[in-house]
């Protein structure tokens, strides 16, 4: 495995908590790995499992979904829906052959900039040794 492998990780962050935590990390001048491409969504409950599958398909080496802590959801229970979906999705991802380290669901409140930085570093450390996620193109046109 090449030592300079830099994973690309997609982070779906909810508008009300996790994205605010990310903002706070930035304004507080905390350092976090540049490997994370952040997509702001209104709620973790907006993250359709299809988005995660599509992210892996298009070359993501890892996916993080971050939402408000249970009980804190701006939409009351969007994060609980995310929890239910991701619980089932995780089992399917495993059967697809995607290592469990590549996918993570975390609750990160607007004040937990440090938690975001910790989660990001942990994910990166765990994904690096796995190497890039390779999905072969399978069509036989032409």
């Amino acid at each position, binding site marked *: 495995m090449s030592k300079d492998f830099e994973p690309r990780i997609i982070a779906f962050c909810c508008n009300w908590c996790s994205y605010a935590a990310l903002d706070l990390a930035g304004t507080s001048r905390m350092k976090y790995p540049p490997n994370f491409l952040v997509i702001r969504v209104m709620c973790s409950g907006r993250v*359709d*499992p*299809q988005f*995660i*599958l*599509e992210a*892996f*398909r298009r070359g993501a080496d890892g996916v993080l979904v971050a939402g408000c802590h*249970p009980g804190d959801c701006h939409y009351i*229970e969007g994060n*609980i*829906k995310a*929890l*239910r*979906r991701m*619980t*089932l*999705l995780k*089992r*399917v991802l495993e*059967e*697809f*052959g*995607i290592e469990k380290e590549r996918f993570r669901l975390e609750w990160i409140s607007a004040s937990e900039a440090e938690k975001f930085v910790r989660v990001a570093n942990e994910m990166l450390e765990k994904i690096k040794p796995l190497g890039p*996620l*390779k*999905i*072969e193109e*399978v*069509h*036989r*046109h032409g």
Partner: protein
Amino acid sequence: MDKPKIALYWCASCGGCEEAVVDLAEKILDVVNLVDIVFWPVAMDYKVEDVEKLPDGSITASFINGGVRLSEHEEMVKLLRRKSKLVIAYGACSSWGGIPGLANLYGREEILRYVYHEAPTVENPQKIRPQTETRAEEGITLELPEFLPRLLPLDLVVDVDYYVPGCPPTPEVTWKAIETLLSGNLPAKGSVLGALDKSLCYDCPLNETKPEKVLIKEIKRPHEVIADPSKCLLTQGLVCLGPVTRGGCGALCIKAAMPCTGCFGPLDEVIDYGGKAISYFASIVDYSDEQEIEKALGKILDPMGIFYRYSLPASRLRGKITIAER
């Protein structure tokens, strides 16, 4: 004027789609009145060379069922594509891979090893396997098609004009599709013919008994419960995929008190049927605690087989991503 020419071909399928055409019953006579069938291996004695002799583009429509699993399938669908104005993926296997597509969870070597050596019903002490080329005693070489690394839906091998869904498509859907094709008023390329553009729930006779908010505490497997055929099956704990499955089947399974398994496939705009089905179904499991959610969903023993039953090769990831030749 000559009647439009139609071809029918099967690839990796069970034969149910061929049966579905025959299930048109006396309507098949109407079809034969309207078109000439120029190729249909299961029912008529035309050979491949008869197709090869036809001018390119001279077949009005080829109905192809089954996924592409053998080199022979690939050659035939490419030949039919060349000879046809329209290619129609007929049935779930051709459209998204279908049940044989679940084999994409395993590599080619794993499948061959199991089927020819390890399956409990197999006795093969000499470890004989089919070869693409065999020298026979008389000095002639016998050939067999190659088993491809994966099963592919038709549209990953050739350009597909229309899809007819179902496992198999019902006679009504088949007839509607044929009518649409013969009307001359063709829908946009890539359209699904003969079915609805709304979900099965829209067409379901039990829809009235579906509460505004469905929540499930305990998931039941079909053999664990005698379902009340007059009540929405979701409210009885059964995993019914009606809400995310294209309607148009006439709710046949539901009328037999069996939940929808999704054979009419995704609605427009859905890019991964299984992902969508997981999204919908998990969200109605009525627990908030992580352990309780896990326990309730644990009742689904085979999520891949439930949510990707007909669509694994057409999913975003196509099957197991690291098919190592172990």
